[in-house]
């Protein structure tokens, strides 16, 4: 039997870090030379990637169908911006950037809490009932954000007139770092024991339970991790836009994120990343024919679903090391490593 070359683990990490560094440098270089408009699109792509990857935890890996992801995003967005506005005294001590990072962390934590609170009752239901109950929660969050001020006499969310003058702290650098962190954390989590428990629930919940996996615990865990990253994306979105209106985070926003995940392929991180990129760039690129861009978008959606129902990438996931191994082995005249053998 011929021995195939495998890249050892530490080298794989190094390769990935090198790739990240190269991407970051080129991205940062690009942002500085291109138009501000393109820089904004680039940031939006990053935010959408975090959203799609986070929803992919609940849809692709856990196998549920939540339709309230925009709700978590709005919780994160409001938490982060209210924190940044109210805690402006902190900037004197730790600086503006650090305050924003703290706000993002807080946004993630509060969203994750909401994920637990909503997840425990909602995850008792299955399939479409879960979809509709999360949709309900998402809409309730929106209605509360719209009206809480007038009910309690607060001046927090400013209801329909929108929360204005949020410091625009989102830069390409922090979006990029968070995208990389999100992908890395989600990836390592899914390769861990906990991740396999989550995957087993997707494959067969009853069998998983029979094997001694605490299904409720892991479902809630996956759901709240998903909410955590959605909250962070929300915080970035707030710092990107500078103004928040609860109606942005309606049902259609949740659908938009779900479309990214399904179009890319459920359970494929590469798919989520690619389709989030494409679906962010596409409407911008079609801005020239503004009347027909949404028609094109929806037609494309239908056509892709009819001809490739599992999404563009299916369940395939990309691994740079695997690709390199293949290249080395082919060049060395050896049989390539079987697909699925080499983890990232």
């Amino acid at each position, binding site marked *: 039997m011929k021995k195939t070359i495998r890249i050892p683990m530490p080298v794989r990490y190094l390769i990935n870090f090198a790739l990240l560094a190269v991407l970051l440098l080129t991205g940062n270089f690009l942002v500085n030379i291109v138009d501000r408009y393109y820089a904004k699109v680039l940031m939006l792509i990053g935010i959408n990637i975090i959203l799609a990857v986070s929803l992919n935890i609940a849809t692709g890996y856990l196998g549920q*169908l939540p339709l309230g992801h925009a709700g978590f995003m709005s919780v994160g967005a409001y938490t982060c911006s209210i924190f940044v506005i109210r805690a402006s005294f902190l900037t004197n001590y730790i600086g503006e950037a650090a305050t924003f990072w703290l706000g993002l962390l807080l946004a993630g934590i509060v969203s994750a809490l909401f994920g637990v609170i909503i997840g425990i009752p909602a995850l*008792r239901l299955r399939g479409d*009932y879960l979809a*509709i109950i999360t949709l309900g929660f998402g809409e*309730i969050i929106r209605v509360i954000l719209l*009206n809480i001020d007038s009910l309690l006499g607060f001046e927090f969310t400013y209801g329909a007139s929108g929360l204005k003058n949020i410091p625009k702290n989102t830069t390409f650098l922090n979006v990029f770092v968070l995208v990389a962190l999100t992908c890395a954390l989600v990836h390592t989590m899914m390769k861990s024991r906990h991740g396999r428990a989550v995957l087993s629930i997707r494959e067969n919940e009853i069998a998983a339970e029979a094997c001694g996996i605490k299904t409720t615990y892991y479902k809630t865990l996956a759901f709240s991790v998903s909410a955590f990253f959605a909250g962070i994306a929300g915080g970035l979105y707030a710092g990107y836009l500078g103004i928040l209106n609860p109606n942005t985070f309606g*049902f259609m926003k949740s659908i938009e994120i779900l479309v990214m995940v*399904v179009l890319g392929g459920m359970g494929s991180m590469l798919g989520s990343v690619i389709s989030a990129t494409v679906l962010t760039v596409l409407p911008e690129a079609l801005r020239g024919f503004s009347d027909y861009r*949404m028609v094109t978008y929806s037609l494309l959606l*239908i056509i892709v679903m009819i001809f490739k129902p599992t999404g563009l990438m299916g369940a395939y996931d990309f691994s740079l090391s695997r690709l390199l191994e293949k290249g080395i082995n082919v060049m060395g005249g050896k049989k390539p490593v079987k697909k699925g053998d080499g983890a990232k």
Partner: protein
Amino acid sequence: MMTFIYQLINGLQVGSIYALVALGYSMVYGIIMLLNFAHGDVIMIGAYTIWISITAMGLHPVLAVLMAVVICTLLGMFIEKVAYTPLRKSPRISLLITAIGVSMLLQNLAQIVFGANAQTIPSIVTAPNITVGSMQVSVTAVITIVVSILSMLGLTFLVQKTKMGKAMRAVSEDTEAAQLMGIHVNHTISFTFAIGSALAGIGAALYCCAYPQATPTMGSMLGLKAFVAAVLGGIGSIPGAMIGGFVIGIAEALVKAAGLSVWADGVVFAILIVVLLFKPTGLLGRTMNEKV
């Protein structure tokens, strides 16, 4: 007390529209397990059909309503054939995304063709209010409630007593077994879509009586609430859809009457969540085994 009764009638009127639309969702869900997101937009097309028929073609309102029903039926069957049939064997989530795609397509096409602004629909029913004792009841409310109850009775008859109804129940029970028994599954599913969309056409007419204007996005919130009504009552059950519609309609009317109209959407979804938590299959979900 008087306002309470008025609001109750108001709620019944809106509720019966929700119920009619909910039936469309419920039947389609029962037969191919699809949340047909495009259903609300079929209603929107129905409303525009009525608008064109009356203003541009000068048809009599009754003919306009008939026209809307015919167009909606054809549209529903067309959508099913083109977008849903190729995906019958695919993962259900792909089907769902396709339905969302169809919904967006219809909305944006309508926006291009008819413009984003609301079009005012001339009143369909022109009759004086009915006076009962000391109160005035609008004719449209009475007509809406009566028409929807009649449609509901007709549908129950169709599903329970006719051969096609039996086929529908069989297909929703077990598609493959039904096919082995010689039931033409494709025809049955098309027929279900046709009936659901025809009800959507009637719903469009009744909706136009209550809120006489058409906008490209009018279908989404109406559809969402009707869907909530269907789930609330127990999806797949005809009386369930009716009860769900009335509950949602009355709750909404009462919340609005209490001066909290901004909370109306929230209350609707809160009711849904509470019901689903205590009865995960909806109010009548378990007791009705026949899903159509």
